[in-house]
């Protein structure tokens, strides 16, 4: 059985009298340790799908099975526990707590996690060993995103979910961040799912899920993923 499996997942939002279907029977799977890229245009339903997968949102129909557990059936509290122990999130806008230093932002995650890694070690691992006591405002965008990744990794989650992690970064910095994610996946065997609208990134993934109009219309497994350094866009 696949590590991650979505079966006919539906999500509908009611906006007044209009019903918007954000997930229209999405199904796909991903194996443990894979680097998965979900690609699609804006409004294709990528983020909705990721939110449901990460326990930030619930689905109306279907199954979302992560490591044998059907996330779709969890209560609000169980979802919190799921996010707490099993999921690491990385956002486009980092979402660091401005009032905490880099290290403290990582600690914010590590203090509530059972198998937490040492915050300082993680920060060193993402290359921020010397910026640990800086506040977010004192860090560059790339550095902030690395803090965000460190914060996600510090929990040693089963699944690392990244929503447009390079969307707010320049080309070079974006590459560095993607490399960090890819390396994490390769070195730690972490399952990483990245959302992007950038088709050019697909060669680096083990598995590519293409979305359009709230549907996953093409799922392909890339037998020979290339390191991100070799990709140009």
């Amino acid at each position: 059985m696949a590590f991650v499996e979505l079966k006919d997942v539906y999500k509908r939002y009611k906006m007044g009298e209009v019903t918007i279907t954000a997930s229209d029977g999405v199904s796909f799977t991903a194996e443990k340790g894979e680097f998965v890229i979900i690609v699609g245009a804006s409004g294709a339903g990528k983020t909705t799908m990721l939110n449901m997968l990460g326990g930030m949102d619930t689905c109306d129909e279907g199954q979302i099975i992560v490591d044998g557990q059907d996330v779709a059936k969890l209560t609000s509290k169980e979802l919190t526990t799921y996010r707490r122990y099993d999921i690491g999130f990385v956002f486009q806008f980092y979402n660091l707590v401005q009032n905490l230093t880099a290290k403290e932002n990582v600690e914010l995650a590590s203090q509530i996690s059972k198998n937490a890694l040492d915050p300082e070690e993680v920060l060193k691992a993402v290359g921020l060993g010397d910026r640990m006591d800086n506040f977010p405002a004192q860090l560059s965008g790339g550095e902030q995103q690395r803090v965000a990744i460190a914060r996600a990794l510090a929990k040693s989650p089963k699944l690392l979910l990244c929503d447009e992690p390079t969307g707010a970064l320049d080309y070079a910095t974006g590459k560095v961040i993607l490399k960090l994610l890819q390396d994490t996946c390769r070195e730690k065997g972490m399952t990483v799912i990245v959302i992007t609208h950038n088709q050019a990134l697909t060669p680096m993934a083990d598995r590519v899920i293409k979305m359009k109009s709230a549907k996953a219309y093409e799922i392909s497994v890339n037998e020979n993923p290339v390191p991100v350094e070799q990709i140009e866009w």
Partner: protein
Amino acid sequence: MKNKLVLNTFRSIKTTFSRFAAIMAIIAISCGFFAGVKVCSSDLLISAQDYYEKQQLADFRLVSTLGFTEDDLSEVKKLDGVEAAEYGYSADLFMMLPDGKSLTVKTMSFDSSRFSSGEMLSLPYFIEGRLPENAGECLADASFRSGTEINIGDKIVLSAPENTEFGDIMSRSEYTVVGRVKSPMYISFERGSTNIGNGSLNGFLYIPEENYTYEYYTDIYLTGKKLTGEKFWTDKYEEASDSLKSELEAFAEDRIAVRVSEIKAEAQPDLDDARKKIDDGKREYNDGLKELENTKSPFEALSTACDGIDDILTEFSDKYIPTPSRNVNPVLPEELDSSMKGIGDAFKAFGVDAPIYEMLLSYVTQDPADAVHKEAAKQTIMAYQSSVREQIALAQSDITEAYNKLSDAKNDIDKAEKELAEAIADIDEMTNSAEWYVWNRDDAFPYFANFETDCGRVDAIANVFPIFFVLVAALVCFNTMTRMVEEQRTQTGTMKALGYSRKSIAAQYLIYAFSASIMGGFIGIAICLKVFPVIIYKAYSSMYLLPYLLTPFRWDYTAACILAAVLCTGTASMLSCYSELISVPAQLMRPRPPKEGKRVFLEKVGFIWKRLKFTQKVTVRNLSRYKSRVLMTVMGVAGCTALLLAGFTLKYSISAIVDRQYGDLFLYDMLTVLDDEADEEDRKAVPELLENSPDVSAYMSIMQDTTEIDTKEGVMEVYYFVPSDEKRLGEFITLRTRVGRDPIILDDSGVVINEKLSKQLGVSVGDEITLENASKAVKISAITENYTFNYIYFTHALYKSLFGEYNNNMFIINTADGCDRDRLSAALLENDSVLGSSFSDDGSQKFKDLVSSLNLIVLAIIVAAGALAFVVLFNLANININERMRELATLKVLGFYDGELSAYVYRENTVSAVLGIASGLFLGIFLSRFVITTAEVDAVMFAPDIPLYCFVFAALLTAVFTVFVNLILHFRLKKIDMAASLKAIE
């Protein structure tokens, strides 16, 4: 709507209603609370003014030692300054109730037709019942002072004090109560003082005018032209009243002179008449005396003659004067012959026909040897003699009688002479000491002036609260508007880019703030203007008898408050949007760089910082990051705690009075008042009765006298209290210092006064005070704890040395266990010298009523404090959540449970709340002191200490409010939508 900007503003009100409501609420609370408390005193005054005007309360009462004549009245009416004047009769009398209880009352004349036509001044205000229809019906005070309830249908009997003839005052003594009234002359429970009974009046009665038998009017009531319609508390009224007073006083002098000559002229014919009668009597007496002398003298001569006969008869009983020859007269000794002739003449003159001389002659010349003839002669003479003697005796008794009559007449004349002299002296005294008393409302009507002062106390309180509320309101508005401006940053940028001017952008915020302020202000004021005065009115109704309360809507206060609110919110919004107004659109379209995180001072204090848990560190950081919000919370919570502390303390201060005054200090259970003028024997029977009563465990006679003392704060009523045995005083009354509770011993070295009086007089132990009518100044030897009324305690030796006279007029009594009160007071009342008894419990009940009415005020304070705390905390929490939505959502994504997330936010709130509570308790000490000293009325001292439980309650209740707000907050936090909050940049 044409203007899309305005439309947008109104839509934003709808979409951000909770924010709009927060501004509205804080403005409503601040404006409402301020206006509500502020109008209390003026509502009370306006209501009193309305009451006074409707009841045509007199501006002046005139009383004359001579009484008033019709002329006096018509002359008063002619005065320039006088609008209307009206006469009246009044007398202070004893009133006996059906149950035998005797009370002192002021009776006033009443005429139903003049009442109905409105000619009467100071109209009684009907509570129930009807007008008297005949001479035997009367109207009674609806709130008698001693707690006695008089009902319609009750029959009462009036009587005069011992030395006064009831008939000189009134022709009728029994009346039936047909109506219960209030009088605008008696605004408080105080009924004034009198010179009968124990010196204070218990109530008043309106008696039909025709029952009074006075020859003159006893009172004139009048209203002033310039005073009519003038508000009684204004300076204008006071000035007009003063000027009318001088006019009346000058007029009084003239009228007195007129009256004096009138009285003298009127009395003169009577005096002359009396003089003439006396003179005539004297003349008659002298004539009678002379005549009597004349009548008396012949009888005296006759009596002498009779005695002469006795002498002759005795002398010649065994001897005789021989006759030389027949027909030749014997030679009698000259002396004897003339005496016999005298006797003969006297008898002849008296009309005795017999020739006494010859008979005597024959007797003295008769030889005793011829015993028969001698004896016969003697018998004949003696027969005449005894007949004359009988007649003399008869005449003598007539003369004595006549003498007695004359001497009686003489006595009468002397008496008349003395009476005349007295009458002249009386008239002189009356005319020399003749005086008109010109009393304005302050002088004439008990507690008239105190009412105004007491109303002012609420006003003083009203002046403190707004400071809190305005500060908090300004902070809340500033924070709220700042947040709003920030949220609309991008929109503002877009507007600017579209070409809208700064003015129109600023206008959006102003419209938002103004509409919140105006609506909030109106709502708050409209509610509080109705609610607060009613609460204060209820609380004051235990003291004042205002029959109704007017709560008009105040456009002036409303306008001023709303203007202030608009200025406050307007300034706050302008300050908060200023930086955005001067920014260029491009700047605004870009997201605002997040506020930098900062290290706080505490981090430098390593040993503390290292010991803090991670979450605690975050809390410290956040507290210093959001300083203005923390300040707002601290102030709001502090205000809330301080208000609560003041409320609880106020309640404690008043409720403690009852227990302390009637539990710890006044140990006696009953007070029995004696009539000064009563029969000595009756008075002596009272202690015997008490001694033998099974209901009494201890008693002592005392003297208590009421007097008025001028103090810094006005005239205060003070009781002089003189125990007959100061050593036993402790059984009945505890004298002790309030602080330390050291017992005070009353001795001859000085007086003991109560704490409140010492404060009002500004004196302390060792100072000397001079009491009115006292022979010398007296030292204050101690200041005693006391809460109700004012007392000066004297030993009776000291009292005597100061005032001379000392006369016990009351008994203080400790009742025995299982005492039958009705039996005891009935037994006492049977004694004619007992005017009545009162139980301490009745007094304490009055204060308990006062306390329960204060519960309303305390409740109002708790509600206001709660509302303040709620609005501030909730608004703060709301802003906090909105502004930190991203951070909180991040935490949720990271897997913080709902509880953990709430705790993360609560920790900051809790620290602010704790800081607020601590500073609130501190501030509350001052606020409580202020509220208590300003709320205090003259007759009462509130307990000035703040017990621990007040602090605990205030802190706990604030904590409850905080927890409540936190609970609501918890649900808001739960609802945060992670996905939405994190998707885009703010």
